[in-house]
């Protein structure tokens, strides 16, 4: 068997799909041919890599249309309510607990209000941000308050006050976003200790002035600048 013949069969050889006689013939050639052995080593690397291959499976046919219809529905403006493609924000956002003053532990949930002001003091408008409408049903009060203080420079200064806002996952933090069309403008990041009041001051660029929606997302501490889809709180200016 010549090198060209061996080379043409090495793929099948490493896959183990040859007839025994053919395989034996190739092995005999390999024993005396360093060049073909080198090629075999390379193909064996490919064969090992193939073990990591995902199973050859197509996503269900309806999925594409489902995604495209979501794109159609959101175009051209971005809707905060559709951030969870699965159709529901996770119940983990209910992990805000307010302990009442009564002897028995009274657990209450608080929705986020945003107070918006054209003056430095006091803020002028209020929005409630909630994890989901379904999860908010039956809940009373506020998750917290964010006061917006537009600055003479055009920056948006935000004082965020959250009650018993659960600490983020390990290696994660929260980030406040102003949503404008399809864009998100970050107002900065923060963390929470999980109990008591979390009070932070954040700032967003002047472009945030036209935003009508705010989101608080949980972001991982990595080098991916893409906003997370993990939305903890959301809400709109009235």
């Amino acid at each position, binding site marked *: 068997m010549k090198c060209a013949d061996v080379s043409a069969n090495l793929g099948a050889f490493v896959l183990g799909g040859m007839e025994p006689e053919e395989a034996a013939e190739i092995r005999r050639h390999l024993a005396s041919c360093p060049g073909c052995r080198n090629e075999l080593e390379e193909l064996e690397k490919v064969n090992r890599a193939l073990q*990591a291959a995902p199973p*050859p499976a197509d996503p269900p046919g309806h999925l594409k249309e489902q995604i495209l219809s979501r794109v159609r529905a959101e175009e051209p403006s971005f809707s905060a309510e559709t951030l969870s493609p699965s159709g529901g924000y996770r119940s983990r956002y209910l992990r805000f607990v307010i302990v009442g003053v009564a002897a028995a532990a009274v657990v209450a949930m608080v929705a986020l209000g945003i107070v918006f002001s054209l003056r430095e003091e006091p803020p002028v408008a209020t929005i409630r941000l909630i994890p989901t409408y379904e999860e908010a049903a039956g809940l009373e009060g506020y998750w917290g308050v964010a006061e917006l203080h537009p600055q003479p420079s055009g920056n948006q200064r935000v004082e965020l006050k959250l009650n018993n806002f659960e600490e983020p996952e390990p290696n994660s933090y929260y980030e406040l976003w102003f949503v404008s069309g399809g864009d998100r403008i970050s107002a900065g990041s923060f963390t929470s200790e999980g109990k008591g009041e979390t009070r932070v001051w954040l700032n967003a660029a002047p472009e945030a002035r036209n935003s009508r929606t705010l989101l608080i997302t949980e972001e991982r501490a990595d080098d991916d600048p893409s906003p997370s889809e993990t939305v903890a709180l959301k809400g709109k200016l009235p």
Partner: protein
Amino acid sequence: MMPERADEISDEQLMLRLGGSQAEATISVLYDRYSRTVFGVGLKILGDRSLAEELVQEVFLKIWRSSQTFDPSRGSFSTWLYRVTRNCALDLYRKRAHRVRPVPDGDPHIAAARDSSPGPQEVVDGSLLSWRVSRALEELDAAQREVIELAYFGDLSQREISERTGVPLGTVKTRTASAFRRLRQELAVGDAPREASR
């Protein structure tokens, strides 16, 4: 002048179109190019078909919503999409790991009680290689990919592949050889997103 065909445009050029009026058509092309890889890697990481479907939805909606965060000077679209896929898979993995547990005094408290399955980082370790192999397989033509899939996933011999497909044995061998050459080339010089420590 020949009209520009969407399937001839690079991924990076397509991403530039997402901000315009061709968003739906653009997502459609990117879906055709990458949905099998996202779905397959999702199955590999999450081990659950419905979660893998959810992953596909999240990833392609994120392409649409976060296209402005893609910077071609920092890497290829495939590199960016791999990271998006991995991060979304991690999010889904974490969400699946959450359980409702009672607090000691009996009040219901939804907490991040985790099961004893491997941690998310362990789960995605190796996903980069899966991604690269999947992309390399997608670069094969349909005939080459068929013989590799039948041999590797169907565990068929060359002769059995010939019988199954009706293609002469010699042609099966030739396709296998050319598929391996192409895979070697793709895996050696193809898009190799660096596995960042995150």
